[in-house]
């Protein structure tokens, strides 16, 4: 589609570039930044993947679960006195404050996920509604929450907050790695590993996998399906809350009523890329999508291309390998 329009367009300025020189020059910084964004995508993607694995439902409202986490983080930090400029606090105090914000963000997200499940999806499950009804409800819920936030906070993004002074820590391949990048990637990977262990080892995790495999048989075997479903939603919410802290750290201007929308689609694309329903796939897909998006942005010369590139990745994956890179489902992943 693009080339034809390009051909028909009047000779114009460089709205789309193929700037390989710039890509080569910024390769490593784009890589590190891409991994940072990718970790955030991965955390959100896990929420989509878990719910999809268990209920076979795209939870469109997960983007709102995430953005409410962002609001939780934002309100906590504002309350604690953070502002646009870096706070004048010691390392210990900042860590305590951020942990507090993380906890509030997690509570906000998990609570939203919980209420969403109870109020919107459970009544449908009770009467065995078909998939289309679930999907329409999901999008309706997403829409409703989004506009509740809109009525509450208005269209203007919240004031940007700086959590700590971003400074380089060490140098790799001639590029500095910054403290926020290191923090986000490390924390996200640790969380994903914990979740992975939890799902493959714990009793609840086994329940989740059982329900994903076959809900009816799992119920016969004594798994409490309702409890498992609620747990799944809440785990997704917890990870979204953590992602919310990192997102607010990385994109301070992103806390706005519809800020979750595009991120949600990217996270879903990441989940599909890695193999939807697959926990490791979400991590791999998230990191890859972060990288592809960042490379694409530098190559094509405009930050808005990131979204387009992510979308193209989604379509291409669906076209050539719909089961994703790792491709196993939640139920079939090994114990």
């Amino acid at each position, binding site marked *: 589609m693009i080339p034809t*329009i390009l051909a*028909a367009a009047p000779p114009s300025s460089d709205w789309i570039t193929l700037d390989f020189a710039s890509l080569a020059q910024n390769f490593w910084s784009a890589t590190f930044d891409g991994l940072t964004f990718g970790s955030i995508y991965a955390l959100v993607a896990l929420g989509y993947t878990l719910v999809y694995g268990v209920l076979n439902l795209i939870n469109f409202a997960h983007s709102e679960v995430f953005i409410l986490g962002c609001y939780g983080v934002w309100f906590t930090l504002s309350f604690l006195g953070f502002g646009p400029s870096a706070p004048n606090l010691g390392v210990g105090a900042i860590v305590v404050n951020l942990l507090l914000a993380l906890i509030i963000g997690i509570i906000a997200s998990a609570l939203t996920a919980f209420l969403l499940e109870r109020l919107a999806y459970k009544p449908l499950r009770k009467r065995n509604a078909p998939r289309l009804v679930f999907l329409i409800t999901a999008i309706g819920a997403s829409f*409703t929450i989004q506009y509740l936030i809109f009525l509450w906070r208005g269209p203007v993004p919240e004031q940007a907050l700086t959590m700590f002074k971003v400074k380089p820590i060490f140098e790799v391949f001639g590029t500095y790695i910054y403290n926020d990048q290191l923090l986000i990637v490390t924390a996200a990977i640790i969380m994903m590993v914990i979740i992975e262990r939890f799902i493959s080892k714990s009793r609840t995790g086994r329940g989740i996998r059982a329900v994903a495999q076959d809900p009816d048989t799992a119920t016969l075997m004594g798994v409490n399906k309702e409890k498992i479903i609620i747990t799944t939603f809440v785990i997704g919410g917890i990870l979204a809350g953590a992602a919310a802290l990192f997102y607010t750290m990385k994109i301070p201007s992103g806390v706005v009523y519809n800020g979750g929308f595009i991120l949600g*689609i990217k996270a879903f694309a990441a989940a599909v890329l890695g193999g939807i329903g697959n926990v490791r796939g979400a991590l791999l897909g998230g990191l890859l999508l972060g990288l592809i998006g960042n490379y694409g942005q530098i190559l094509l010369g405009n930050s*808005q291309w990131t979204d387009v590139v992510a979308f193209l990745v989604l379509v291409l994956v669906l076209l050539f390998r719909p089961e994703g890179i790792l491709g196993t489902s939640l139920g079939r992943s090994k114990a």
Partner: protein
Amino acid sequence: MSMTEGPRPLRTSKSEQQTEASEAVGRLPGTSADVPRRGGMGGWSDRWREMPRQKQWLILIPVVILAFFLPLMNIPFITTEPGNDWPLACQAMAIFALVAVGLNIVIGYAGLLDLGYIAFFAVGSYTAAMLTSPDSAFIKIPYLWTIPVAIAVSMFVGVLLGLPTLRLRGDYLAIVTLGFGEIVRILATLIPAMKGQPGFQNVGHPPGTGPDGIPVFANSNGTPWYWLTLGILIVLLFLVGNMERSRVGRAWIAIREDEDAAETMGVPTFKYKVWAFALGAGVGGMAGALMGGQVGFVNNQKFDVVTSILFVAAVVMGGSGNKVGAIVGGALVAYIPLRFTAIAEYKFLIFGIALILIMIYRPQGLIPAKQRLLAYGTKAYAAVRARFSGKGANPSGTGGTGTGGTGKSAPPAPKPNAEGATS
């Protein structure tokens, strides 16, 4: 889609059918055939179907005439509040009705969830704008010719988007279309030929100048635009109605009810899904072209993904799978914010909540679709059975032929495929 797998033995007694019917209450937005009528709208639709064709025409023609006179009549209470021009409101209602009828093909008939319908609307608008506006560098053609071009271009985009996604389960289509709705807006910003925010001024309109020298189809003159849109809508209704009753329509319904079963019965599901998606896209593009012409200005700010959700709400509210329902739903979604300006600001919230509540409490919508096709399939099945197993073996055959008032029609058993294969 259906929760029941495979064909079931036909119910033998009518009471059994009734139980079946009451079990099935509100299963699908589409399959409300089994819902017992509770008077109101449902009773009306039954009575309507019992009427002979001539009598239907007798009622329909005055309704159509009334619809054409709608913008000229300024009925107190119904008319919009001051500040919202009534003929323009009528035009908005007609456009939304058109969009809802188009989207109903995708959601209501084929059971595919298209959350980015605004994208096709945008493609249509941009096609009309880029081919008529003096701001564009493309060749110029008369406005009315842009309508078929808009249909073709949006259908092409629809096929392009449908090919990778429609082979898969329906959920992927939902998220891909949702993403596409946003991507179109970003592309309109990024691609210089689409002019981003400045957009295209003076989009063309149909020819004709009034006695006062002002074009008949001026941007602020809603009435002729409404007539044009309504005319197109009526033609479209005939086409869609015929399609619904054709092999294609039966295939769509079979796909919606149970895709695997349809495939097994020999329905080329992928092909028909692409058709439904492309036709829906075409109607969306056409509505977009009409809208672009009427507003006279097209830029990237006009096509918000959220409007797509309003379109879905229109279809679902009216009763998905039902043309009349779609029209009513579409018109209502456009009308309510214009009539009650006090709540206009909350319209997204209201329709969002409405979407959830409808799905939970009344998934069949305001005017449920009547599944004549499924009923017919059952009847045909019963007749065949009766012929081969001796006379009087099948009381439910008579129960089915009664249709209307008493015949509660069809467990979703033999599916239209049975009859699709014979025709």
